[in-house]
């Protein structure tokens, strides 16, 4: 039925997984930096972080991807040319343009999530830590982080789902993930419904994996408190 396109879809799915891994790491990074900036006392940092959230929450994903794809090369090349006029180009391939784009977008949502989670750490726990003589760093590692990620987990799970689904948009700039494979397959087979349904099933598979993992991690996170009522 798929007339030989199975393996192409498989490779497309592999690319989706790769994009997910890369953008997840970046998204967490951007989110943490953004949250830190917003929670800090530094007004400049707060303003920049606010600007970041406004820009990337207010712009359609497809537009960010297109802008980063066309813009990155020129901007980076211009900067590189300042140092060495012989440089022909500094290019960002579609994989990275797309990955960074979606990491920036979901990262702006993650900023809010992490910020809310850090604020949700019980003040009593912090006071207890101080009473026990823990240093700020120890408080951060042993008290803030553990409480914070448990609060952030449900919305973070949603961010991960957004990340996976936004990968489909990167097909617009030619990344050979499953949706683009489908488009090329349709050129040859002329069966749009079949090809697109396969894409849907593959993404549904990814979403299911993520949802199950989040449920598992939630269970793990709450293992010490489940019995207590």
């Amino acid at each position, binding site marked *: 039925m798929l007339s030989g396109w199975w393996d*192409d879809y498989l490779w497309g799915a592999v690319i989706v997984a790769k994009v997910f891994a890369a953008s997840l790491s970046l998204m967490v990074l951007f989110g943490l930096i953004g949250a830190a900036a917003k929670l800090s006392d530094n007004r400049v940092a707060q303003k920049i972080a606010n600007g970041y959230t406004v820009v990337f929450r207010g712009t359609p994903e497809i537009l960010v991807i297109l802008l980063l794809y066309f813009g990155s090369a020129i901007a980076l090349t211009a900067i590189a040319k300042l140092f060495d006029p*012989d*440089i022909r180009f500094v290019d960002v391939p579609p994989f990275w343009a797309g990955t960074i784009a979606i990491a920036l977008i979901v990262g702006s949502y993650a900023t809010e999530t992490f910020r809310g989670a850090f604020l949700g750490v019980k003040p009593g726990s912090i006071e207890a830590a101080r009473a026990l003589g823990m240093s700020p760093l120890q408080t951060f590692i042993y008290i803030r982080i553990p409480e914070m990620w448990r609060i952030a987990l449900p919305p973070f799970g949603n961010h991960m789902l957004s990340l996976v689904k936004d990968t489909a948009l990167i097909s617009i700039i*030619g990344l050979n993930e499953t949706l683009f494979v489908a488009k090329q397959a349709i050129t040859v087979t002329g069966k749009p419904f079949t090809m697109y349904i396969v894409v849907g099933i593959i993404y549904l598979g990814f979403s299911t994996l993520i949802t199950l993992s989040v449920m598992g991690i939630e269970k793990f996170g709450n293992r010490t408190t489940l019995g207590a009522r």
Partner: protein
Amino acid sequence: MRLRSIQLMAIGVVAMCSAFNASAETLRVGMECTYAPFNYRTADGELAGYDVDVAKGVAKIIGADFEYVCQEWDGMIPALLANKFDLIIASMSITEKRMEKIDFSGPYRFSTGQIVGSKKTKVNLFDGSGKPIPGNFKGLKVGLERATTYASWFEEKLPEADVLLYDSSESLYLDLQNGRVDLIMTNPMKAYLKFLSKEDGAGFEFKGPVIDEEKYFGVGVGIGLRQGQAELKQRLNGALKQLINSGDLESYARKIFPFKLHKDAWGQ
């Protein structure tokens, strides 16, 4: 300060790499990858088609490695200008408008357009001399691919027409079949091969003459490159002429069509 030295190191590495690459030149080629039979992907995951064969032939003659990048058609020239790739070998017609922004090699294929529509549409769209009759297009929906010569022709000749702009030519055929559009304008060779001669195209036919006005379709289809690269252009032209004169270009065409797709005069 630390950032600056890292940047300098990075620039240094890139510069060294470009120095090493001087012998094995790599050029990136942009194509649509969804435009059978000229450039498309087969189930094996390989790129195939007339444009791909031309690209491979040229690569061999000029001694460079070609890397292929897939790009949606309406972003083809912006992507070339933004350095996403170095050449466009994607059945792009050499038109004046495009030559304002990019350069082209000599032509390697005819460029023509023709309107396709349902057999049930009985209206005469063109008069005896081959000019379109604007009034007869009323009430008909026309599908065109964005940023194509067909779209430009329609915009100038029939600005009043009810036009829908698509991202890819495949979608044009799909929507013509399911009745979303009544007419499309596209490459007649492709239309015949992939559509009209097949089951899907049984109820459809050409609705007018082949149009090859140079103003809109140029002298033909060529390899696009950024301006200011006279040397590369020369090499490409040399390679194309060689392909024409050796008969290779014709053999690429005959893999798909029972005729060749270029004029012999281009080999001079």
